[in-house]
């Protein structure tokens, strides 16, 4: 492990603070440290429940090198397991597929139910003898990863010791309580991914501030001006931006998407965009919502998984396609800045950057959270030595 980075300047008030040091974007040792402190010890976004819509649907995923299995049980519950057999650690499911009965390990055929129970151990006691006193099936189910579904995002806590999800996310859940309604994924035309050559944190930083909008997204200037936006800061949990002017998308006949019912008049014109720490970017509007899960694939590689949602299961396909295309343009416009900042972080001597106290509060809020989590992790690691 390299020498610890100095985070004292990050912890200062926004007027005097500096951003995170370069090493948090360029040093593999810091990336490994952040993997534990910022992703495994928190409630991190892994996938969406819509990835496994039907009972028995299974989707293997790799999260920061960890082989996981997203699985909707026959009981309808979405769970996350380590995607390995309890026998020899063999990978169980290689491709997304429907589990018709049980998950059979392709190596020695130990079988698991879709709820993770070990249900068969063929020949474990010798040929044709499928039991052995030393093999207690009840204790050898698939290793489950703590998970929770909120706004269709499957959040996981790899370390298993984060506060309960409802406690950890209380601020965000409460802020959008009016939108605590069924969300319907728009389907295949309402999901796309962007592969970006950047550290995942830069995608968070860019998302949560409105300062860049008039420069990077000039198309928004015609109806959503910088002065229509406001900062959102909830230290320790999330930050983002809101707009007081939201214009609904229409088709050529002036038809719009159906509204989420009874969310209140305030949301007629308002929309909000939250970066829920660590790696989930959410947006909500009167008539649609989206979730972006940032999948860190390395120190300088991130895959953005974008999903759009509506208030009803059946929406007009053409309007939906138009909405997807519109958001894709916006998110693609951000790629050059998050990649540019990543390359910029190789400039030796860069001090982390100076914040605009008026405009960069949400970004500083995120950096401050990173610094607190990393320092807490270091203190705990030091105490354990």
């Amino acid at each position, binding site marked *: 492990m390299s020498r610890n980075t100095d985070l004292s300047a990050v912890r200062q008030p926004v007027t005097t603070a500096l951003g995170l040091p370069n090493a948090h974007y360029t040093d593999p040792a810091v990336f490994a440290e952040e993997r534990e402190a910022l992703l495994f010890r928190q409630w991190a976004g892994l996938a969406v429940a819509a990835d496994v819509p039907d009972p028995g649907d299974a989707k293997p995923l790799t999260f920061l090198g960890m082989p996981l299995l997203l699985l909707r049980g026959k009981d309808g519950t979405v769970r996350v397991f380590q995607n390995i057999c309890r026998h020899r650690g063999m990978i169980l499911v290689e491709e997304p597929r429907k589990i*018709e*009965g049980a998950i*059979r390990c392709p190596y020695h*055929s130990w*079988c698991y139910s879709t709820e993770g129970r070990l*249900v068969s151990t063929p020949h474990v006691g010798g*040929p044709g003898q499928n*039991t052995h006193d030393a093999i207690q099936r009840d204790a050898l189910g698939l290793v489950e990863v703590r998970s929770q579904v909120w706004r269709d995002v499957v959040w996981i806590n790899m370390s298993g010791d984060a506060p309960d999800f409802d406690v950890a996310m209380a601020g965000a859940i409460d802020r959008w309580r009016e939108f605590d309604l069924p969300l319907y994924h728009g389907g295949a035309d309402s999901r796309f991914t962007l592969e970006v050559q950047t550290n995942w944190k830069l995608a968070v930083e860019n998302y949560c501030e409105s300062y860049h909008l008039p420069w990077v997204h000039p198309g928004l200037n015609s109806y959503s001006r910088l002065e229509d936006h406001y900062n959102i800061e909830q230290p320790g949990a999330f930050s983002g931006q809101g707009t007081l002017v939201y214009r609904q998308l229409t088709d050529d006949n002036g038809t719009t998407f159906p509204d989420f019912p009874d969310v209140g008049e305030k949301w007629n014109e308002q929309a909000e965009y939250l970066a829920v720490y660590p790696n989930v970017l959410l947006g909500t509007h009167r008539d649609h919502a989206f979730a972006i899960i940032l999948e860190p694939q390395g120190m300088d590689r991130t895959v953005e998984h974008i999903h759009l949602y509506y208030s009803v299961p059946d929406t007009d396909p053409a309007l939906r396609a138009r909405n997807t295309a519109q958001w894709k343009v916006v998110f693609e416009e951000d790629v050059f800045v998050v990649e540019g900042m990543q390359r910029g972080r190789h400039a030796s001597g860069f001090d982390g950057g100076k914040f605009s106290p008026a405009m960069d509060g949400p970004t500083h809020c995120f950096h401050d959270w990173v610094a607190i989590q990393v320092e807490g992790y270091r203190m705990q690691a030091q105490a354990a030595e």
Partner: protein
Amino acid sequence: MNDLEARLLAAHARGDTRALVGLYTEAGEHANSAVAQGFYLTHAYVYALELGDVRATGLHARLVAMGRET
């Protein structure tokens, strides 16, 4: 190679799990020892379990009766 062996190998080659349930059950019926029968019926049971095939219930009961499964 007898006919059953050939059919088993062919079913494995084409990944026909449903056929394997029946073929391993058949192999169990013709086994010449209790161990061999347990072996074949275990294979039939595991493939039935994987498929969610109703035959799993009966195969499981047979293996339990033989003291080979719980």
